[in-house]
């Protein structure tokens, strides 16, 4: 099972308003399309200035990536499971040694990011330490959610 971060920007999708637990949506799948499978975990990240930039919740993929005629790239269906009470900000994530090299911190313009198992485990641990609901990692194994 893979773990992704999907990024939006406030002028397209303001996750402070649009991320509602239980709702479904279709996100762009411009990269890692072949890696996307139903039930994969996805964190939702919103770009912007350092006071809003970060993670706002998580959910799961509901489909593989697919293309519709009127779309300009592939999309993938997601279901929002958890909305954090407070965002996990990028400036805090950066301080974690295992997360400081996340591609989303170095290439903040892309849409889909794939985490390594180590990054995914550390991120879940960090979220838990911030008193937010983290995805269940199934013990110590980073790959079982």
């Amino acid at each position, binding site marked *: 099972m893979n773990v992704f971060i*999907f990024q939006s*920007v406030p002028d*397209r*999708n303001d996750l402070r308003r649009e991320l509602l637990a239980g709702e479904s*949506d279709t996100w762009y799948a411009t990269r890692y399309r072949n890696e996307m499978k139903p039930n994969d975990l996805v964190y939702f990240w919103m770009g912007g200035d350092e006071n809003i930039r970060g993670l706002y919740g998580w959910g799961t993929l509901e489909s593989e990536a697919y293309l519709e005629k009127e779309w300009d*790239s592939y999309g993938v269906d997601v279901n929002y499971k958890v909305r954090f009470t407070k965002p996990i900000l990028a400036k805090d994530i950066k301080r974690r040694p295992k997360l400081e090299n996340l591609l989303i911190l*170095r*290439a903040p*313009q892309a849409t889909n990011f794939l985490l390594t198992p180590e990054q995914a485990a550390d991120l879940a641990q960090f979220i838990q330490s911030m008193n937010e609901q983290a995805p269940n990692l199934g013990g110590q194994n980073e790959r079982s959610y």
Partner: protein
Amino acid sequence: MSDPIKDSRIGLIRAVSSPLGFLVLAFLAVEGLLTILVVRKASNPDPLLWAMLGALLSLVVVVVALAILRPEALSGSRPLSAHYAVLFSDDLTMALEGPFANLGGVDQDEAWVTLASVLQETDGTGMDREYVKFCKAVSERLKKRADLKGRWRKAQGTIKV
């Protein structure tokens, strides 16, 4: 039979192959002149001795300052960023524009943006400053070549038709 004076001059010229070598040679010349003056004007050598000391300190200050601020100036080499960034980014563009073009549309734009962004954000602790400058210069050139201005954001977030 070799001429020792000529040989020593050739050796001297070879030694002055960098700004640092030239600084040292100039320092030695000044010190040599001052030494001659000290020997000839033995009655009051103090000002000349101070001048020799001043020249030595000046050389140390100049070399240390250059070593900190512009280390490449000591060796006489041009900064990596100015010299090779354009060549390297053009080579990257040439190698990648074909495969990236296969992606098409927003995927293609995003591939270029990601490449440029990773280079732009190269700024790790303890990383060589010249390398960081080089990466940023390559990034700027890539953005220009791929004409990315204002095109990438439309593919972020949810698909809205």
